[in-house]
């Protein structure tokens, strides 16, 4: 079937493709070697295929996921490598244990830059999922653990971390708040009871049950 060709530029190389193809597909079609910066191939959940794109006639450079972005005439694409990034926000698994009244002190100690947000909005415009990243940072920096919800759909692509001029690492701050609020504050009653029953030997499995028919 006949489709019109479009010409895109990926990492400086010209590729002719069809407008129905994603950037990743266009690369594969063109015979490019694709062995990194690729993962879930379209679902948009792994955050591996991060690209900067500029559309023809526009001056703005946007971040996107190559698996979700379709080719169009004149599209310029640059893949972002996953740098072996120095993680300056390091914390131990028991970071949030202890006095949960002082949780804001823990957040500030682990993510001190969050107090210095310039409100530039860079994180929000970098997010390929259009999450309210800045709002999440503000809530977390104020000790409001509902910040967790702002990051519900975060895929940890680190684009906001790259964009942030204050080195806040917004997605890692978001995940920190998510993890701590769950680890210290999530105790479903049915699970608590079932664990208790199993540990006391009140619930065991008979492997020799003759029939497995309902």
């Amino acid at each position, binding site marked *: 079937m006949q489709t019109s060709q479009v010409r895109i530029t990926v990492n400086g190389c010209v590729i002719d493709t069809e407008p129905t193809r994603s950037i990743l597909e266009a690369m*594969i079609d063109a015979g490019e070697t694709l062995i990194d910066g690729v993962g879930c191939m379209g679902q948009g959940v792994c955050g591996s295929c991060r690209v900067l794109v500029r559309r023809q006639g526009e001056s703005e450079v946007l971040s996107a996921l190559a698996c979700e972005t379709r080719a169009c005439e004149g599209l310029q694409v640059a893949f972002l490598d996953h740098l072996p990034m120095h993680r300056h926000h390091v914390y131990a698994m028991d970071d949030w244990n202890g006095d949960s009244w002082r949780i804001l002190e823990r957040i500030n100690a682990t993510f001190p830059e969050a107090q210095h947000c310039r409100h530039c909005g860079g994180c929000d415009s970098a997010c390929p999922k259009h999450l309210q990243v800045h709002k999440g940072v503000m809530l977390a920096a104020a000790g409001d653990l509902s910040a967790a919800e702002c990051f519900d759909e975060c895929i940890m692509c680190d684009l906001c971390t790259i964009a942030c001029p204050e080195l806040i690492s917004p997605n890692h701050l978001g995940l920190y708040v998510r993890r701590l609020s769950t680890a210290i504050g999530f*105790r479903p009653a049915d*699970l608590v009871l079932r664990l208790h029953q*199993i540990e006391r030997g009140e619930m065991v499995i008979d492997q020799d049950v003759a029939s497995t028919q309902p």
Partner: protein
Amino acid sequence: MTGIDHRLALERLLASDHAAPNPIDDIEALLKAHHPDYREGSLVSLAVGANRGSECPTALAASLQSNARIEDADLAGAPVVDTEVLIIGGGGAGCAAALTAAEAGGRVILATKLRIGDSNTVMAEGGIQAAVGEDDSIQRHFEDTLRAGHGCADRRLVACLASSAPDSIRWLIDRGMRFDLAEGGAIGGKLLRKKPGGATRARILSFKDYTGLEMMRVLREAVELDERIRLWNRCPLVELLSDEAGHCVGAVLYDLALHRFVLVRASCVILATGGVGRLHLNDFPTSNHYGATADGLVLAYRIGAALRELDSFQYHPTGIAWPSFRLGGLISEAARSAGAHLLNGLGERFVDELAARDVVSAAILRECAEGRGIEREGMVGVFLDIPELERRQPGTLAQRLISLGHLARQCGIDPSREPMMVRPTLHYQNGGVVIDENGTTSVPGLYCTGELSGGIHGRNRMMGNALQEIITFGRRAGLHAARSASRHPAPKVGLFHLQGWRRQLVAAGMPLDRFGPDLFPRYANFDFGDELALRGGKRTTYAPKRARRVE
């Protein structure tokens, strides 16, 4: 393959009376003619290895019976690193094993082909089974799983899965993974439970419809922040190391960033490399991650591990058939169980949508093969008619098919107005390497966990048992390996097992120039020979092979 033009098919769909489909007279004949697991010529008998004589799909057999990519000479000068536990694979199983092994005091290296978290785990939507409900029990979880697997799973493994499941959920919560609640608050509430197909009780716990993403981002962060775990991204496994007794004593990795082999001498090696979807068995599209090329399965088999149920795969009936960039992506069974119809390009229903998965898959393939499929931009499939369902049961999309709505928008479709195009997709490897409750295999020193291991799902996996398996058995393998690991590397490590392997290949008349594991899908345009030419600094900058440079 061609089909009926999409526009014409849409017109016929609108005019369709949605009459009930004719019953299928001869299911056996349908399966034999169209289902990849039954189709004549789709399976071959293995000629070498521990499972000689067993049947498995042709494409997988070629990989399983491939020759090693390396010789002793390739390893000359490669750096040697020692550890107690080496884990291959950065998905949920590998991360659970690494965290547990490190907590138990083991020295751990986690190596992954792409990047930590790039895995089928992160793509899992449905959820994770654990019998926590008042009306449920671990006995029921055990029996349901055994029955769904057609009674051929390993009872010990299934019992282990079911009885450890609640504790695995606690382990995940302790590391910061959240689950949805049905009622009440975070303290004292009740977990939201969904019922998997084939279960007697609602048992699937979830976080919205991206449970795997929530799990993977927590595990990835925990591993990256754990200073006891050395994490090597972009280091695929190329071969296992053996001693003279044939025990597994480490692995040969290839560092794609530095273009060199690395030898890791390890007391215990845990393979957690996932499934095989990207081998595209029987030329099927797949819902699997880019890295799912059976690397661990191939190498475990080569060093002598036994496999089971290697002819059993899950072909999910409703993979996406259009647009191409989402080809093979999964549309959950929820759509059909809510009442959505499948129609061909003539506007006819052709199968009971809630028949067994293999029957529905075969029927869709029949429509496509016989020219009654629908063609759009070169892709062929059948319609999954969500608009008609929404007219019949208003509100279904918003209440029951949230994930489908998201997917449709990704495809540029308004799901309330336009039907999705679907065809079967290769989803899961039911069988795999034979393991015991601690993930050990028939090869001393070698562990397997996650999708590449077999015995838990029998010949059919229930929804929600894959995520449970990777946590329960990932943890068990990690703990057992850390406890049994020796601090000292084996005195003599090498490629001792390859001699016998090559002898077998020659004796069986197998080609010696089919190399494995594949490492990447065929369309990755990756040539290991070319890659090796990059070694030693001969050519260190990336140069595109065919595309032209910008002038």
